[in-house]
């Protein structure tokens, strides 16, 4: 492992609780399990210990932490205090560490916000999603737009100066103007960061079922394309830099944690269903934790991390450990790296991970994709063109198909 000893690590912590389930959501999250929160937080602190004892982890500093969900902001402050206590006990946090918490606007109180800020949380990511009551209702969200305005104001007052808003476009029955308005309202709240996601009808979600049964009109992909183009224009004008397919930031506030995913850098995954990824010589390793919170708690209740002896990196919550070959990594790197619209996929990075150059590895596909006007290739960076942004799946499928 020595050769691939990273100097810094990301940490993803999954909080799988929600008050109600949104209609489009297929994340690993559960409504009605709030009683489990204390035991779950306990289990998380134990899992931190499993990783924290490892010399490989000890040798790195953690420079990003991301609490995602679910709805992390549902956790009461005392549980947060326990989590942070363990975090500091088991990891070396970098002085400039970025710590994000995902929040739903209706769960935010002045006390919680001040408390989180005091613990060191310095980035808040808020699920705003839409503005029009009809859109919010279709998505099954329990807040309204005034609640978002209030929550943003409270967050500012509590000292958060790095705020993200999540928005969704391309909803069934949503006309272009309603998206334009939602975007305009979001801009008036002046967040440092914006994520705009095209709605995906995930298999098995209520929304997908409604559409399939014709209770809700189908999603119009052409309209969604127009909405996306509008966002590109409007956000650019408002001073936001587009840095990833669905992400914009101003003033250098790109999300450092998410950048690790797209740059194929190492991170640990803690909590139910979380994934971790890092590289060892010649291979990539991806761990996946068990999905169900109860099982997760049970698995971490039994053993203690071994004192002294060094084991394979992981915890008892791990259900799968995947070893990725350089070829696997080449495709994943392309899948991730091409999402970064400005920096793209640097050939140097590709060589470092895969051991061959981009031009060599994708010898047939690259010229073809360039001729189709889907990618830019200057010999050093591979990037999606503006047209390629909206057709990225075609690019990836072509890259997967054979080189």
């Amino acid at each position, binding site marked *: 492992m020595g050769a691939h000893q990273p100097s810094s690590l990301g940490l993803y912590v999954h909080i799988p609780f929600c008050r109600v389930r949104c209609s489009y959501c297929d994340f690993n999250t559960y409504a009605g399990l709030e009683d489990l929160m204390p035991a779950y937080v306990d289990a998380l602190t134990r899992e931190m210990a499993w990783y924290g004892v490892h010399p490989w982890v000890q040798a790195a500093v953690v420079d990003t932490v991301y609490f995602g969900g679910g709805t992390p902001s549902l956790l009461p402050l005392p549980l947060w205090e326990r989590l942070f206590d363990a975090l500091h006990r088991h990891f070396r946090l970098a002085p400039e560490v970025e710590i994000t918490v995902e929040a739903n606007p209706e769960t935010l109180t002045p006390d919680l916000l001040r408390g989180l800020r005091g613990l060191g949380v310095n980035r808040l990511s808020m699920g705003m999603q839409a503005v029009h009551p009809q859109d919010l209702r279709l998505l099954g969200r329990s807040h309204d737009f005034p609640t978002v305005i209030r929550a943003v104001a409270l967050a500012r007052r509590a000292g958060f100066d790095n705020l993200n808003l999540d928005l969704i476009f391309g909803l069934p029955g949503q006309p272009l103007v309603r998206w334009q308005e939602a975007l305009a309202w979001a801009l008036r709240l002046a967040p440092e960061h914006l994520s705009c996601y095209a709605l995906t009808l995930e298999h098995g979600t209520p929304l997908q079922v409604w559409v399939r049964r014709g209770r809700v009109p189908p999603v119009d992909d*052409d309209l969604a394309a127009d909405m996306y183009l509008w966002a590109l224009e409007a956000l650019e004008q408002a001073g936001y830099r587009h840095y990833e397919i669905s992400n914009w930031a101003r003033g250098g506030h790109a999300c450092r944690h998410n950048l690790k995913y797209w740059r194929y850098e190492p991170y640990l*995954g803690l909590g139910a269903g979380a994934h971790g990824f890092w590289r060892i010589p010649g291979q990539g390793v991806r761990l996946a934790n068990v999905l169900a919170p109860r099982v997760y708690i049970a698995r971490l209740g039994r053993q203690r991390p071994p004192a002294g002896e060094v084991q394979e990196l992981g915890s008892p919550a791990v259900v799968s450990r995947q070893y990725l070959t350089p070829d696997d990594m080449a495709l994943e790197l392309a899948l991730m790296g091409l999402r970064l619209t400005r920096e793209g996929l640097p050939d140097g990075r590709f060589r470092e991970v895969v051991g061959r150059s981009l031009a060599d590895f994708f010898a047939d596909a690259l010229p073809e994709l360039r001729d189709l006007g889907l990618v830019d290739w200057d010999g050093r960076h591979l990037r999606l063109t503006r047209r390629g942004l909206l057709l990225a799946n075609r690019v990836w499928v072509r890259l997967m198909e054979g080189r």
Partner: protein
Amino acid sequence: MQDHIRNFCIIAHIDHGKSTLADRLLQLTGTIPPDASVEQVLDDMDLERERGVTIKASAVRMEYTAKDGQTYILNLIDTPGHVDFGYEVSRALAACEGALLVVDASQGIEAQTIAHLYAALEADLEIIPVVNKIDLPSARTEEVAQEVADLLGVDPDEVLRISAKEGINVEQVLEAIVERVPPPSGDPDAPLRALIFDSHYDPYKGVIAYVRVVDGSIRHRDTLKLMAGGAEFDVVELGVFTPGMKPAQELRTGEVGYVATGLKSVHQCRVGDTLTHKHQPASEPLPGYRHPKPMVFASIYPVDPEDYEDLRDALGKLQLNDAALTFEPEHSQALGAGFRCGFLGMFHMEIVQERLEREYDLDILVTAPSVEYQVVLKDGTVKRVRTPAELPPRDRIAEIREPWVAVQIYTPLEYYGAVMDLVTKRRGVLKDQEHPAPDRVVLHFEMPLAELIVDFFDQLKSRTRGYASLDYQPIGYRPGDLVKLDVLVNKEPVDALAMIVARENAYRVGQKLVSKLKDLIPRQLFTVPIQAAADGKIIARANVKALRKDVLAKCYGGDVTRKKKLLERQKRGKKRLKMVGKVEIPQEAFWAVLRVGESDED
């Protein structure tokens, strides 16, 4: 000996109990164990299976000691079930003297009851009416027995009432076969004439012919000759089906059994041909032989051009056992190298397609089926055209002739209107109708075969809730006012999508075809115009709009595994598309021609 042979078949509408009764008869006569079925017994013969031999249960010999104290040999001959195999059915019937007509006591007479009965009467068979399933609570035994008696013009007392499943009165069936079916009437001293009513290919013994000896007899090591096909061979082995193949020394007049010919393909030994001795041949073959000619043609292409050789091998192997299948190499501008194949009909074609996919694991693309046209040129020559692409330029054509068929449709009276409507839309002409039972009608039509192969069966079934069935026979060629409909995708004519249609329908079919194709061809990275042209004029057009958005909104660390699976599925889906020029066209598009076919529906 000859007096103690009875050759018979069982005819029934689907599910009325043909297989169950057959099993029961074989059990009662001790041919198979009391709790087994013929299929099980054949399956259990591992040895045969290991050698890759396909024994069909198409003829089984039983021994039965009747009430009169004498022992009889009963040969049960199976008949194929599909309309495309009408000729094969007629040969199987020709090997019998009698038929059990089985009718379900709760369902009564059905379409195929009548269709099969007509065929049996035509073959001059003694009919034994049997009402089955009398054990059912819903059985209308007496009513149905009366219906059947009326249909046959016999006394209701002559109708047997049984339950094949419960074994009630099945003995009566055996007795009736002995009493009522006449013994075979051939001449034991005349030169050999044996009818081939089925066959299969065995890798060790060559073609196994299933035969009914009509005159004379066959012995081991005889040298035989096929009267129509001309091939000669020494008998490698002969025997009877019990139900497995059991070798014997001789097959005598009236007997049913098999002859191993050593021939290498069923094409040399066709159903309906007559076997005779080489040195002492019969003067006349048995009547009714026809060289089954393919009626429906379609092209088969490998999705991956590298599979071409495999496809040819597979077709060759299928042909060993399928005398009606024809194929020849063909090259399409759009689809590359493939084969133009001939089939007896649509069912036959589907069977072949399925076997290529399932048994040979080939990814294939099958174009819409077409018939064989005769094109009379201005210089008087006649050209045969099996694919629209072969049609000569318009100015050289004097006349186009297309094959016609006589069609019989059997249907409950209540669907009369629905059937008439369908048939007239398909250029059909009603010739005559009959009422074999008060609420049934048999409609006799003539119509172009091309109209029949395009979705006709499905339409008929759906319009009659599955109650109607049909039968058809070719009746020759007739001139028609026909034009070639070209389809252009991205401005390029796609030969595999062209079709020949009646001029009166060209516009409507063109419109429909184009709009179907527009929905079936997935959006590409650029706009794809689709046009239909007849006689060189564009008569319909539509655009497949360019794909604008195909991107994953989100992709985070954990997600990458799931998203990768999604993309992998998208990649696999792509493999099933055929690149034609710069456009990806799915198999369904080539079948779209089928679905628009005659236009009436939707």
